[in-house]
């Protein structure tokens, strides 16, 4: 009886202080910690991969004539990091920031806006500016003509091609 209690006493007395004085002493998060999302508006091409993979379904893309708005309702985020993995442009990054407590969950919302490029023939917005810039950068011959050809939406391109074939 007493031997058991003595053992317990010994076991607990060997470890006197195990409390960490957080938040007075800051804690360094482990390397792989998945914290707050950081989204770079200048890289996003609006492909929507993140929308499809997010388990909490918190990413929404709203399109208008001028721009595409990508909205992260991050108050629902479970910090799985699937969006960052799926992003082809590395526009979403997972940071180590974890002190996100707030009394208003809208504080966590992230909204980025990407400009749209309009088709030079029909005037319909058909591609995001970032995606367009990427395509231009890929061109070997960056002549006016080539760039203006890129500014056609798929429909107008098909039309102009079929006209060319005639």
């Amino acid at each position: 009886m007493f031997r058991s209690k003595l053992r317990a006493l010994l076991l607990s007395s060997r470890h006197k202080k195990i409390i960490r004085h957080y938040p007075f002493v800051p804690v360094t998060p482990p390397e792989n910690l998945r914290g707050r999302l950081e989204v770079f508006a200048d890289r996003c091409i609006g492909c929507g991969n993140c929308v499809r993979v997010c388990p909490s379904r918190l990413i929404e893309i709203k399109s208008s004539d001028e721009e595409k708005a990508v909205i992260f309702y991050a108050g629902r985020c479970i910090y799985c990091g699937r969006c960052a993995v799926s992003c082809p442009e590395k526009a979403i990054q997972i940071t180590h920031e974890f002190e996100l407590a707030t009394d208003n969950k809208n504080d966590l919302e992230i909204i980025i806006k990407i400009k749209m490029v309009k088709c030079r023939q029909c005037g319909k917005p058909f591609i995001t500016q970032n995606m367009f810039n990427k395509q231009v950068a890929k061109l070997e011959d960056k002549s006016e003509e080539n760039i203006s050809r890129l500014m056609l939406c798929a429909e107008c391109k098909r039309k102009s091609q079929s006209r060319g074939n005639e």
Partner: protein
Amino acid sequence: MNDFYQQIASVAKVEPLEENLIVFAEPGQIKEIVNIVKIQNARFVHLTAIDFSEKKNKIELNYFFLLLKDKLNIILKTELDSTNPIISSISEIIPGAIWAERECKDLFGVNFEGHPDPRRLVLADDWPDNIYPLRKNFSYNSKPKVKSETTVELKKPGEGKTVIPIGPFYPSLEEPAYFRLIVEGEEIVDFDYRGFYVHRGIEKLAESALNYQQIPFLAERICGICGFVHSTAYCQAVEKAGGIEIPERAKYIRTIFLELERLHSHLLWVGLAAHIVGFDTLFMQAWRIREPVMYLCELITGNRKTYGINIVGGVTIDVLPKHLEDMKEVLNQIEKEAREIREIILEDEVLQLRFKDVGRLTEDDAMKYFVGGPVARASGVEIDIRANFPYAAYSNIDFRIPLRKEGDVWARTLVRLEEIFISIGILRTIINSLPEGNTSTKVVKIEPWREAISYVEAPRGQLFHYVMTGPEGRPYRWSVRAPSYQNYQALSVLLKGGSIADAPLIIASIDPCFSCTERFEVLDRKNKKVDIYTAKDLRKCLEAN
């Protein structure tokens, strides 16, 4: 085996498929076949329904049995008319099926004739009649109007007996459940349970809104302690159904986390049991010892719990050599300290007085209710899915299965303590034999209408997941049976004859996991105005008791 096969084949159409034996039967033949299966000492696993009312106006019932000695799953299928699904109950033959049948009745509206206890199990008391949430015509985000008059059906005490209510918030485990102990003097003579307060509509949500790769994250949130077993079981089921072979390394990494989870879950339980009998030093020390495991998990995955690393096709992270070094260190430390804890428990006479001969479950009863995990092994039932149906990397690892015959709380404690050391051993083997390679494969397409069963030996027992793939990039049916679901049903046996003071300990000794058991709530009470109990109402409650 052959006899048995022919016996079933003479009654119904049989189709062997790998390790499964699928039996197609008419509703009238179910009892006959269940009797044949029972003679073979098959374990009843689960009963689940699949709604095909839009496709062919049928509801398919699936009875899952498990033949341990032949390593064979028996899936007994029958089809009922969906306008008036009615079938005779098998609860008389198999008492372990009582809850499963009640659940089917609640969620699919299947009526079981001759059921001994046809009350509601899953649905809330004010849920409207004739609305069955898991049928496909019920939308996952609809909110039906609640019943204006609710009646709570509870067991009434007999003459000269008293009711002691525990709950609706269970004090020592700090989770919601309502236990009614019906006592005669000090002795518990009957027991009633009303739970399922923490349903979250998980199965429904997965079947109607998410895709294959999103569900593992939802599955992991079924449980806060052993969530990884759920995501693993789900991923394995989908991989089996889709014929996806995952890399060896991914299997080993899954095994690492399954074992780490068992390690900390058992240490947590040891602490809780000590806490319940008032030995708080042991409680704190057990939880302190558990802490390095959590740090280790955080170091590797980024999270203490709910690692979020399982996806269909493998795992998303890699375990680096430096992590293995850390793991070695942590294991050495835990082994040393867990030994001390074991010594403390073994030598403590007070603990022995409280634990021994309390909450006894005989081997017969353990077989009758198909309990699993440490509860079964403490009653002498040799079942460990890791050995019986090896999954992940367990087929390459040797380990012992601890067995005790006593079947009391003491035996359950010893089995769990033993398993801590076995887990440490398994982890050490993995550290030395972790294969190189990729951690995930790309999943291309999963064919619809395939089905698969997956078992995982969770810290609490045998976990069962069933997946039927669907045409819309998500499972058509995903059914989960947590280990506590079966263990709970044995509580009525465990508690009978015990004393009131032992009840919290006995309930805790099966290590019940409330959220696991109650995975799919559909009720939303947010929009209903808050009920305030007046003194009159409270008096009424007291009178009802």
